[in-house]
């Protein structure tokens, strides 16, 4: 219920129209619960990550020893180069995401899996 409300509140119902692309077997309430649960976990983790920024590793010995994102980051040149190769890697990962999701969409079938036999 809470997750459904969360999904409605943040306007994700529009996104759910595209569910047939990734999870055709999930329709109606099942889909909303599934997506709502995922959004809940994502929201909790994202809030936690945002809350600890910029400290990435807290030191219990002395606060000044803590590793912050600014202190441990690579040089500006490396970051600039990464802004070129990272989108390419991300696009490949998303392509793989869509391909596998569509390839194995539907109900689970023992006959169709590729992990051998029992």
């Amino acid at each position: 219920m809470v997750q459904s409300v969360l999904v409605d509140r943040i306007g994700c119902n529009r996104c759910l129209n595209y569910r047939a692309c990734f999870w055709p077997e999930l329709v109606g309430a099942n889909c909303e619960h599934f997506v709502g649960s995922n959004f809940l976990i994502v929201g909790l983790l994202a809030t936690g990550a945002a809350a600890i920024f910029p400290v990435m590793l807290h030191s219990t010995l002395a606060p000044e020893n803590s590793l912050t994102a600014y202190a441990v980051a690579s040089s500006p040149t490396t970051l600039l180069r990464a802004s070129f190769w990272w989108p390419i890697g991300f696009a490949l990962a998303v392509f793989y995401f869509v391909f596998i999701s569509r390839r194995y969409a539907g109900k689970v079938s023992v006959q169709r899996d590729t992990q051998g036999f029992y």
Partner: protein
Amino acid sequence: MIAIWYAVVSFMLIVYIVLDGRNFGAGMLQWFVAKTPEERRQVIAAIGPLWTWHEVWLLGFGGTLIAIFPRLMASAFAGYYLALFLILWCLILRGISLEVGGHINDRLWQTYWDFIFVCSNFLLAILFGAAAGNVARGVPLNADGNFSMAFFTDFNVRGHVGLLDWVHGIDCDSRRRNAGSSWRDVSHAQDRRPGARSQRKTRRSIFGSRLSRCFS
């Protein structure tokens, strides 16, 4: 710029946790929800074709972390060395059990790999949880950005803690003071005493009751 890259790295880790968390759950529950070989096969079929796709995000996270925050990677990997190697072994064994577990139609072979599959998923969930907990709790980083932690000490949260020390209410220090300098000394000294076995059983039951009280 740094904040954006921090968000990117966090995003990749979150996607991995959400996607592979489903595999951990399926693996841990395999013995509880699937009683027959066919049902176990069905659980594996639910995650079998997808687990490689999910681990792509872990690789992406690791690669991005190395490139963008190399000093963090160096400190964390050096400090969490044993835990990270255990995670690596669990990921390897999980992959092997998924891929080869059903290739030989022999009951012993399949049961063995099912056992490996369930145990590796349990261990992965515990180790990832402990790693996240230690990031939140903090680690003994020195001025050089290095730290060293035991994998576990006495599971107590007070004093010098290890990675897996998360249990409240266990007072092991008094036992150590009475019987020796470490757990090994305690156990060896008690093994030689008459009735040591029954005492060990009693101690285990006390430990279990305290553990359950901690989680209740």
